């Protein structure tokens, strides 16, 4: 079977030099025309001309038998001359026509164009039937109208046409007529320029701006001419006598048949078969498909019988071509574009990783089209065989196949396919056989390659990917002696075909091979550019995309291959000298393949990137290649690795606050447990990126980022900035050097320039020489939201605050210490006043300060605080607004308020009052001092306690040393230590809320604070006090022990005109006359108290205020109001006022403080006793003592006991009441008065006899005693919480008794009213 044995010695040059990779089966039926641009300039106008010419790729010819034939032409740009040599083997390889297109501006250029045209003609002269030249001349400006027709073109065309006219005389006229017209039209340009004499082709002249509308018709005419020549050749061939034909040879066969007997039967058959095959080729070209088919069949049989493998293959291929022309005419109109689009569309870049889906859809699509076209064909075939004439409609109605029957030519006009056509599924088999036949000849390698490509294209059209793969794989085996560029071209074409069937991986494989071939070692001119673009093209096959984000998203493919590919791409880019691209790809590699690399690789790559970027810095902008490919930016998002990003609030003193506005009344329900829509809760989760606080326009804001450097060396990150969207944001660059593997905090700052919503997207870095935009949304694997939204409010003014006081060394420990901007400290003695000037400067350069609100917070009680600090708010408000950079001042008054009175144990009095009501006033101090140690102290604040302890200390000293108040003197306890311990620290914050400008209208303000540190030093202190009756009944003496706790001499002014000097740490006693508390006040207090008690009882409060409490309070405030003690430290101008606020009075004291309800009127010896008057009587003489009592109060007094007692005062603290032997009273000395109504008077008379002379004193007092039944009523009205049942029973009773009990509250207390001063009687001897 193998004829190759004979042919093996054939030299290589007779093989075709280069395969035509673009060929497909349908090109067998085309006439080959070389379309070539000549001359130097290739203006756009030529491109348009090219397109116009190309568009005329088929003509319709009605032949002599009246059959319409469609003749197809193939325009090519280049054609190796040696391909013509294969013209006998396959006629479509012959170049039949030549069209040159050129542009000239002057005569010399035109001459050059003509020369080139002629040289081309000579080159392809052996096969050329006809040629045309199309010339574009310069724009005409002044056209001369004289006509001098240039006849050369016509003359030249004449001989060729004559040859043709032998066959078709009718055509000559057809051709000539248009030529005449042409000349008319082109006459103008031809006037100006003349073609050289040796130019013997027909030329068409156009001006550049011409529409050259007739170009297409002219080209059509030219093609007609070609056809008729071909047709003549075909007829010539068909009329040859079978026994006289010469042997047709493929170029390499020429020497094989030398000396062989050509007349042998075998060779005769061979000759006939080959001619038949040749005729079939011509018929196919001439549009006679039926004839061609049967001729191919015959030739195939004939040749096979003589074992002429090469030509058998050719005839088989011819059969396939002919069938393909009939079956797949759509291949012609859009060579391989129908199907590929289909593949490409679905198979594009990303979806390869879901092969099932893609495969399915593709398969389905393709299969339907395929099967339908198959079925339509087969149905046609069958219908043809059954000789029915109607199936035309069915064919045209099959929408998927684009077979348009009209093109088929004469016989197929009714849509019937010839019976001997190859079935679609047979075509690949025939091709396979043809290829096997070709493969026997080394010199037919090009033919074989081309056949394989044609077969591939048919298989693609038939959607048989496995066959495609098979044919393509086969191409690789063909041992073709070809140049490197051709080899590369082969890979590229294979790539393209694989892509068309969706074998992306295979395509990528070959694309990469092609890329490598381009720059193979030893290659003379490595084409890095090509290599680069091919490698880029193979990205999809490896599931890489140019966009790093897409790659990261997909995270598919073979990492090792991807890394390798990108690395070779990088080196290609580097060799290309395009360092920007190299940097970009390196960045891409680091970004996308970070996780697929080992630690050493990572650091190696990082170093490489650093080296690359040294040549060209990387930046996050898309790069556009020459071919228009856009390389999207790559960012080193995770280098350094961001662990955390925290949006920081503004510093506390600059933080914007809402100005509180009185809330609109939202009804009585402030809180509802019902969530009306669950959307609320979801919103909370969703808005994790929403920042709760606000930023302020034009103010510096901060974002803190925690970064980790994953590389083993120091990483310098420069120019870090925040990336934002939304409002204009000015970001400040930050530079940081990160140590390996150590998380580092970095603060990024920026200033929003507008108000609105700021969208923080991430940050930009500049590291390893690459600028990157690291967006949060691209940081995977961390719990970071895609962005942060911060609301920016309008600009707020800023203020600076100064005080006139010195600053403190330490800041306060109070709450909200973070808003403190400045501090002030002040030391004051208790009772001293001072002031502090606070200066507010508006620091903002454009905003006025329009709103200031001041309040003070401190660690003391609100009440005391109000006493200590005072601000004239109105004066402050009057100064507003403050212009930009202006300042205002206001004054803060500070008064060192303190307790000057040593606190008396308040709890003692009500409990023990009964006891000391009964006892004499002289016992008072004794009781109080002795009871003190065991008293519960009222505990408030630590300093207070300290204060008290000190007091207790001093008091106990007092009580220990002195029994009587008269001898009281204060011992300086612990000298200086006690003074220090006694000082009180007050911390306060003067909080300023301020605002201005737009932010004020928007309702925002800022808050800042001045921290005050007050140290209150003890000055004067009242250590103990008592109340003494004064000379006048309307007054009493308040006797105070005042100690000077300062270290300086103190001058004390205690009444209007009395001053006393107290040495440091000394104390002294001063009496101060005070007006008694009037009865009206007492009554008012009582009424208030009754009302309050009533209310309490109604509310079932367990504790009732006792009247005495209210009264004692009343008296205390009375004293505090009346008595002001001014002190001054001598030698300085430090002065202050000590108040007696908080003085606690015992029950007995209260009686003295208030105006007595009883008015005394006592007469002795019938003379009214005046205070301090001397009364004299003699021994043994009876003397009348008359006492008149008047009830001045508003209530009746009950159970009064009037007692008269005489005693002798030894003036040494001893009083002798045992005077039974010295004085006698006739009449009762105790008188009980059960009730004394309002304004009622009672008189008691008795007579006194003194037995011995001397000085006697009489104590006359009136005491009340609470009654038993009253007590019980009290217990009723104060029911304990436990016996509620009893309460219910008793309640009506207690209420009914209420009035009575209220009225008799006064009697519940034991009172003693004395007549003061005691009566002094001097008894003399008679």
């Amino acid at each position, binding site marked *: 079977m193998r004829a190759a044995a004979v042919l093996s010695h054939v030299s290589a040059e007779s093989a075709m030099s280069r395969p035509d990779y673009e060929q497909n089966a349908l090109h067998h039926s085309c006439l080959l025309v070389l379309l070539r641009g000549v001359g130097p300039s290739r203006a756009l106008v030529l491109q348009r001309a090219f397109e116009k010419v190309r568009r005329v790729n088929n003509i319709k010819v009605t032949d002599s038998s009246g059959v319409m034939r469609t003749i197809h032409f193939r325009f090519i740009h280049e054609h190796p001359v040696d391909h013509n040599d294969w013209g006998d083997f396959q006629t479509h390889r012959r170049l039949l026509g030549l069209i040159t297109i050129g542009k000239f501006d002057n005569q010399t250029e035109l001459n050059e164009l003509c020369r080139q045209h002629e040289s081309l003609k000579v080159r392809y002269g052996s096969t050329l039937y006809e040629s045309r030249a199309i010339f574009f001349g310069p724009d005409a400006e002044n056209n001369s109208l004289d006509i001098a027709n240039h006849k050369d073109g016509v003359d030249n065309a004449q001989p060729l046409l004559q040859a043709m006219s032998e066959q078709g005389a009718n055509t000559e006229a057809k051709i000539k007529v248009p030529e005449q017209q042409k000349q008319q039209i082109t006459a103008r340009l031809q006037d100006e320029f003349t073609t050289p004499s040796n130019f013997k082709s027909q030329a068409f002249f156009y001006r550049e701006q011409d529409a050259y509308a007739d170009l297409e018709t002219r080209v059509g005419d030219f093609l007609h001419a070609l056809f008729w020549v071909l047709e003549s050749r075909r007829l010539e061939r068909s009329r040859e006598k079978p026994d006289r034909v010469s042997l047709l040879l493929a170029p390499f066969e020429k020497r094989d048949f030398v000396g062989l007997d050509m007349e042998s039967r075998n060779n005769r058959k061979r000759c006939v078969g080959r001619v038949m095959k040749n005729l079939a080729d011509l018929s196919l070209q001439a549009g006679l498909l039926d004839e061609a088919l049967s001729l191919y069949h015959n030739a195939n049989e004939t040749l096979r019988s003589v074992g002429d493998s090469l030509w058998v293959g050719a005839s088989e291929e011819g059969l396939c071509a002919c069938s393909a022309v009939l079956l797949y005419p759509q291949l012609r109109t859009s060579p391989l574009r129908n199907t590929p689009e289909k593949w490409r569309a679905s198979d594009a870049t990303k979806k390869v990783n*879901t092969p099932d889906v893609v*495969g399915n859809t593709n398969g389905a699509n393709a299969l339907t089209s395929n099967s339908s076209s198959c079925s339509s064909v087969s149905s046609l075939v069958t219908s043809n065989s059954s000789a029915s004439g109607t199936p035309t409609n069915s064919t045209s109605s099959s929408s998927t196949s684009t077979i348009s029957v009209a093109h088929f030519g004469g016989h197929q006009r009714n849509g019937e396919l010839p019976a001997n056509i190859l079935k679609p599924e047979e075509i690949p088999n025939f091709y396979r056989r043809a290829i096997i036949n070709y493969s026997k000849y080394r010199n037919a390698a090009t033919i074989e390659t081309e056949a394989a490509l044609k077969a591939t294209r048919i298989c693609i059209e038939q959607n048989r990917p496995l066959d495609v793969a098979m044919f393509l794989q086969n191409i*690789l085996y063909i041992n073709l002696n070809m140049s490197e560029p051709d080899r590369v071209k082969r890979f590229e074409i294979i790539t393209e075909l694989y892509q068309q069937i*969706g074998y992306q*991986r295979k395509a*990528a*494989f070959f694309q990469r091979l092609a890329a490598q071939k381009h720059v193979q070692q030893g290659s003379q001119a490595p084409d890095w550019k090509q290599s680069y673009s091919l490698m880029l093209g193979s990205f999809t096959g490896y599931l890489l995309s140019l966009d790093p984000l897409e790659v990261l998203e997909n995270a598919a493919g*073979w990492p090792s291959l991807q890394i390798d590919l990108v690395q070779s791409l990088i080196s290609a880019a580097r060799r290309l000298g395009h360092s920007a691209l190299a940097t970009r790809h390196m960045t891409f590699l680091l970004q996308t393949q970070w996780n697929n690399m080992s630690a050493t690789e990572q650091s190696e790559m990082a170093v490489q990137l650093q080296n690359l970027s040294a040549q060209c810095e990387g930046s996050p902008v898309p790069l556009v290649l020459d071919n228009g490919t856009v390389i999207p930016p790559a960012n080193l998002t995770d280098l350094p690795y961001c662990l955390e990003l925290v949006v920081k609030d503004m510093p506390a003193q600059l933080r914007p606050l809402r100005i509180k506005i009185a809330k609109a009344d939202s009804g009585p329900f402030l809180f509802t447990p019902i969530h009306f829509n669950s959307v609320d809760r979801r919103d909370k989760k969703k808005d994790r990126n929403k920042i709760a606080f606000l930023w302020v326009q034009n103010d510096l804001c901060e974002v803190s980022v925690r970064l980790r450097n994953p590389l083993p060396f120091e990483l310098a990150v420069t120019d870090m900035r925040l990336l934002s969207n939304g409002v204009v944001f000015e970001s400040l660059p930050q530079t940081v050097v990160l140590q390996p593997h150590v998380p580092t905090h970095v603060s990024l700052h920026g200033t929003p320039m507008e108000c609105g919503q700021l969208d923080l997207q991430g940050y930009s870095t500049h590291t390893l020489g690459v600028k990157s935009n690291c967006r949060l949304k691209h940081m995977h694997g961390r719990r970071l939201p895609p962005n942060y939204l911060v609301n920016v409010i309008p600009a707020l003014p800023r203020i600076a605050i100064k005080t006139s006081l010195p600053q403190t060394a330490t800041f306060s420990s109070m709450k909200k210490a973070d808003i403190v901007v400045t501090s002030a400290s002040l030391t004051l003695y208790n009772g001293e006043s001072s002031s502090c000037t606070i200066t507010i400067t508006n620091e903002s350069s454009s905003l006025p300060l329009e709103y200031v609100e001041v309040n003070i917070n401190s660690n003391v009680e609100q009440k005391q605080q109000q006493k200590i600090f005072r601000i004239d708010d109105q004066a402050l408000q009057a100064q507003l607004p403050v212009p930009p950079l202006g300042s205002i001042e206001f004054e803060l008054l500070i008064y060192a308020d303190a307790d000057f009175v040593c606190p008396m144990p308040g709890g003692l009095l009500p409990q023990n009052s009964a006891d000391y009501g009964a006892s004499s006033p002289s016992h008072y101090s004794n009781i109080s001092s002795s009871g003190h140690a065991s008293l519960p102290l009222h505990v408030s604040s630590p300093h207070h306690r300290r204060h008290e302890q000190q007091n207790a200390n001093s008091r106990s000293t007092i009580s220990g040393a002195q029994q009587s108040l008269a001898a009281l003197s204060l011992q300086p306890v612990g000298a200086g230590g006690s003074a220090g311990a006694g000082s009180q620290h007050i911390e306060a914050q003067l909080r300023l809320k301020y605002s201005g400008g737009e932010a004020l209208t928007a309702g925002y303000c800022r808050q800042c604070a001045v921290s005050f540190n007050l140290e209150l030093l003890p000055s004067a202190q009242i250590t103990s006090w008592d109340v003494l009756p004064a000379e006048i009944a309307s007054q009493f003496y308040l006797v105070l022990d005042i100690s000077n706790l300062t270290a300086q001499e103190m001058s004390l002014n205690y009444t209007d005109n009395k001053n006393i000097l107290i040495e440091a740490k000394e104390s002294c006693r001063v009496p101060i006359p005070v007006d008694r508390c009037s009865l009206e006040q007492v009554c008012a207090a009582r009424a208030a108290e009754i009302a309050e008690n009533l209310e309490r009882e109604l509310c079932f409060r367990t504790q009732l205020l006792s009247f005495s409490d209210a009264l004692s309070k009343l008296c205390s405030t009375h004293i505090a109001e009346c008595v002001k003690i001014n002190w001054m430290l001598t030698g300085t101008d430090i002065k202050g006022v000590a108040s007696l606020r908080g003085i606690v009075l015992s029950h007995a004291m209260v009686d003295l403080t208030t105006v007595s309800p009883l008015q005394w009127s006592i007469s002795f010896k019938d003379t009214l006793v005046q205070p301090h008057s001397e009364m004299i009587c003699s021994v043994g003489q009876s003397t009348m003592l008359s006492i008149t009592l008047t009830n001045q109060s508003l209530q009746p007094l009950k159970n009064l006991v009037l007692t008269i007692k005489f005693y002798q005062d030894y003036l040494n603290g001893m009083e002798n009441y045992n005077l039974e032997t010295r004085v006698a009273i006739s009449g009762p000395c105790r008188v009980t008065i059960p009730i004394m109504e309002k304004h009622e008077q009672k008189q008691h008379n008795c007579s006194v006899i003194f037995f011995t002379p001397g000085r006697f004193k009489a104590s006359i007092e009136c005491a009340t005693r609470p009654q038993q039944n009253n007590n019980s009523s009290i217990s009723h009205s104060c029911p304990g919480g436990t016996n509620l049942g009893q309460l219910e029973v008793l309640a009506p009773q207690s209420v009914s008794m209420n009035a009575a009990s209220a009225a008799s509250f006064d009697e519940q207390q034991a009172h003693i009213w004395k007549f003061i001063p005691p009566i002094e009687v001097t008894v003399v001897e008679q």
Partner: protein
Amino acid sequence: MAFCIAVIGKDNAPLYLATSDLERELDLQYHVHAALDVVEEKCLIGKGAPESKELYLGLLYSTENHKIYGFVTNSRVKFIVVIDSSNIALRENEVRAIFRNLHMLYTDAVCNPFYIPGEQLTSKKFDKAIQKLMTGNA
């Protein structure tokens, strides 16, 4: 005997790859990767009739140096074996045997309760067995 044995997951991500020659590993990877297209095509064809599904896919393609054979499990895990082209002595039956052994080894490896399907195979035992299989001593 075999140049390279590869196990490829159903999403076409490599699960395991062993080569006899480390220098050429990348090249072989490229070849194996390129073979996947044909594997997919063949799987697609086999899909129509699941009962008659043949796990052994046969020769995928061959180059000057290699013959590449494919095998797909029912869970769509692909095995690819690259065999020296020059080794004519190797019969198709032997290739089938290699795949059968490989399938068994893979099943054993995947039965490891600590193996998460879809992850790379890192079992030492599997590795050892594969190396043995490649040298033809299995």
